[in-house]
């Protein structure tokens, strides 16, 4: 029966091509959304994951590093250092600032004052230049560099102070903003009051239990809150989930409905065109189940064609996005592709409902009527 399905479907190649293209666009929509979401989700945790710390300590009430604002007295560093199981405490600054590039461009960046003594919270992946800038130097993200015409040696102003670009980092793009890194001492008192830090990053002694030390800090130091690396990373990623997931699910649904509609209409049209032939099959003894298999096989074939077209359209669209909107970071995984393939199969199964009801109503005796 599959040969009947394929022959009937492929009989009108233009229609199949257009339909596969339509399904392909629905697949592309779902894949790009999934890629965007996973891209943001991944990026949201990279800074904390690569910070080199075991615990993040912030002001009480702060639960993530992305949209909460924390400010802590610098002398807390010494107090925390005395907690059992703590090997080292490093103060860092993380603030959203405006960079001045040339006369007119003022891009915003998440400026991190990394700990120059231990390299904690510095950039973790470099494209070129130094990973840890010296005095008067800054490391900027590759997207920011590209968008603002920055390269090694370019000048950037922050709060009236001049910095020279010493390195270009990768994986430090947060879509609307990018990370930039300078030494802590350079911006202490510039973007925060003197003798303050945004976070204190704790490195544990070998064998120390992170959960226990965290609980100890939370108990002994009112007004601060300690997180394990997993907790703060998860919290950061949950910010992204909370912002994007409802929108994403809605758009997923739209993509899914478009796919179902295109497949459903195509298979329905192919069924209607061959209604008489289905009547013949029924008359000679085909059960509705056989006809359902033909319709389903057509829908599945269309879904597979659409999926392949969708992968090609996605690849082209992703290249275009990378060129036109470099901040939009797309992250594709085999899991997503498998999910979208399953979605395409799901679309075809749902889309078969319409032609199926039509097939079930065909009266086999009707084919004896003339015309």
């Amino acid at each position, binding site marked *: 029966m599959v040969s*009947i399905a394929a*022959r009937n479907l492929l009989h009108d190649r233009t229609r199949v091509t257009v339909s596969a293209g339509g399904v392909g666009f629905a697949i592309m929509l779902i894949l790009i959304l999934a890629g965007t979401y996973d891209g943001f989700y991944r990026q949201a945790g990279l800074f904390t994951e690569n910070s080199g710390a075991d615990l993040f300590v912030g002001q009480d009430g702060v639960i993530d590093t992305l949209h909460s604002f924390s400010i802590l007295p610098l002398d807390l560093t010494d107090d925390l250092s005395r907690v059992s199981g703590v090997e080292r405490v490093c103060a860092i600054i993380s603030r959203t600032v405006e960079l001045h590039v040339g006369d007119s461009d003022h891009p915003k960046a998440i400026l991190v004052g990394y700990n120059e003594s231990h390299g904690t919270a510095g950039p973790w992946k470099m494209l070129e230049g130094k990973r840890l800038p010296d005095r008067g130097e800054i490391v900027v993200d590759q997207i920011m560099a590209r968008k603002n015409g920055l390269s090694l040696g370019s000048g950037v102003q922050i709060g009236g102070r001049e910095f020279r670009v010493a390195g270009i980092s990768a994986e430090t793009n947060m879509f609307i903003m990018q990370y930039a890194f300078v030494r802590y001492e350079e911006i202490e008192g510039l973007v925060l009051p003197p003798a303050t830090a945004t976070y204190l990053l704790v490195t544990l002694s070998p064998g120390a239990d992170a959960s226990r030390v965290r609980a100890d800090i939370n108990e002994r130091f009112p007004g601060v809150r300690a997180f394990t690396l997993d907790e703060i990373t998860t919290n950061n990623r949950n910010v992204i989930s909370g912002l994007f997931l409802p929108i994403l699910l809605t758009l997923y649904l739209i993509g899914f409905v478009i796919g179902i509609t295109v497949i459903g209409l195509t298979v329905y049209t192919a069924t209607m065109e061959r209604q008489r032939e289905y009547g*013949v099959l*029924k008359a*000679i*003894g085909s059960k509705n189940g056989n006809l359902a298999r033909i319709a389903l096989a057509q829908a599945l074939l269309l879904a597979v064609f659409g999926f392949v077209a969708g992968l090609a359209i996605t690849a082209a669209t992703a290249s275009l996005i990378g060129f036109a909107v470099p901040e939009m970071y797309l992250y594709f995984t085999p899991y997503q592709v498998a999910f979208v393939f399953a979605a395409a199969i799901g679309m075809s199964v749902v889309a078969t409902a319409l032609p199926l009801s039509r097939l079930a109503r065909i009266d086999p005796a009707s084919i*004896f009527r003339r015309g």
Partner: protein
Amino acid sequence: MDVLRAEAVDKVYGVGDAEVRAVDGISITLAAGEVTLVMGPSGSGKTTLLFLLGGLLRPTAGHVWVDGHDLAALPERKLPGVRLRTFGFVFQDFNLLANLTARENVQVPMELAKVPVAKAEARATELLTRLGLGSRLDFLPEKLSGGEKQRVSIARALANRPRVVLADEPTANLDSKLGKEVVGLLKGAAREANAAVVMVSHDSRIVDAADRLLLMEDGRLVAME
């Protein structure tokens, strides 16, 4: 040997003043290898009788016995299986599947009956060759003449070795010579397969090919020769 027996079969459409008795108390038996021609004016109930005999319609009253089954009493879901294995159908408009070759069209009922593909292909080839289409096996219907299409339709009807072949106006779209030739082929092939044949037709030129002639009028059998 009788292969089909219809007993006091009625088919009534509508109710009250709108009631139409399309078939009225018909009883017939069909013997293996026998060719029965049903004739009568338009609206006499010939095609309805064909539907009733082939399990495409359920009688309002009466019984149609075939292979030990009463088609009138069989549940709906079992009728396709009986049609597939017990009946072969030949249509006026041939009704071949346009995107399948002649051989594939003949294979379809066997595929539905779950005959292994190689076996189905061999039988389709054999049937078509016997009907003079050995050189047209891989032709699509659009490349075949009317007579060739009807021969493919006959081969398809015989594919599952049916007990009864039901043919609805099999010569209507063929010229006189071709019509006689096709009916002759149908008769020969059915005899060889020991199947009963019922043909419904307006075409008096094929009367000679029939072993028995039934005349219908207003849903009743008015003559049997």
